[in-house]
């Protein structure tokens, strides 16, 4: 299984990738903004889950999420972001996010959300 990790901070990408190992995902493609993420998807690579930051240069996470869903991409998406307001969470879920994780987070919190999503995907 492979994940797509989208964040303009290489530090966060590294933390997320380490946490993904706790959920059994040992392979990841990194993207530093939404445009790179869309390129990775267009390349045909298959991802079990996408971890998506909100505030990024060039193309924000919410714009990326909107583009993914409009293109029919059904890969589960977890927003991983500093945007903690309830209205932001609602906006993300309405746009098609499957889950939402607010920074700062612990590796266990992220792994639990990924495991939950994968279990749900496997059951459907």
């Amino acid at each position, binding site marked *: 299984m492979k994940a797509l990790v989208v964040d*303009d*901070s*290489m*530090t*966060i990408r*590294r*933390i997320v990738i*380490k946490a993904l190992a706790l959920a059994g995902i040992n392979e990841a493609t990194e993207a530093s903004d939404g445009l790179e993420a869309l390129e990775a998807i267009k390349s045909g690579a298959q991802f079990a889950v996408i971890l998506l930051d909100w*505030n990024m*240069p060039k193309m924000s996470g919410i714009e990326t999420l909107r583009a993914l869903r409009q293109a029919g991409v059904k890969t589960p998406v977890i927003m991983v*972001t*500093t*945007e*903690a*307001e309830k*209205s*932001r969470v609602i906006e993300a879920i309405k746009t098609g996010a499957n889950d939402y994780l*607010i*920074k*700062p*987070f*612990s590796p266990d919190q992220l792994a639990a959300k990924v495991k939950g999503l994968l279990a749900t995907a496997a059951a459907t």
Partner: protein
Amino acid sequence: MDAFYVTPFVESVGSVFQTMLGVNPKRNTVKVCTGDNGNERVTSLIGISGRMHGCVALSFPPQTALRLAGRMLGTDMKEINEEVIDAISELVNIVAGKAKAKFNTDPPLQLGLPTVVHGSAYRLKYPSRSVWLEVSFSSEAGDFSMEVTYSPDRG
């Protein structure tokens, strides 16, 4: 600027440092900031806009920055390089993000993208009408400070 605008940032520093770094910062002094800085520092800044506007900066001596970045990245950091700059930049982003949610404005306040300055011969200049407060912290990773200016939007 009163404590209303500073307290969320102080609380956010405590929470973020504990969760992400396993560090328990202790707040020390609060004073009006002059911007003088003759010592080598790594300073990360981020702007906040919306119903209220301002800026928050975290400023670290190099050794503190190295220890904190090392904790974030899970490896010893020996020099102020791109990885350390990125880690310190993300720290201020997360601190500001957590603090802005406490103001609970509608629409939510917006964060800019963080900027990092590293050196020993720079001076932060503050616009004459703004008041910056400097909050100093001590921690097991070393001392550091936070500088905040914040006010309701006049527009």
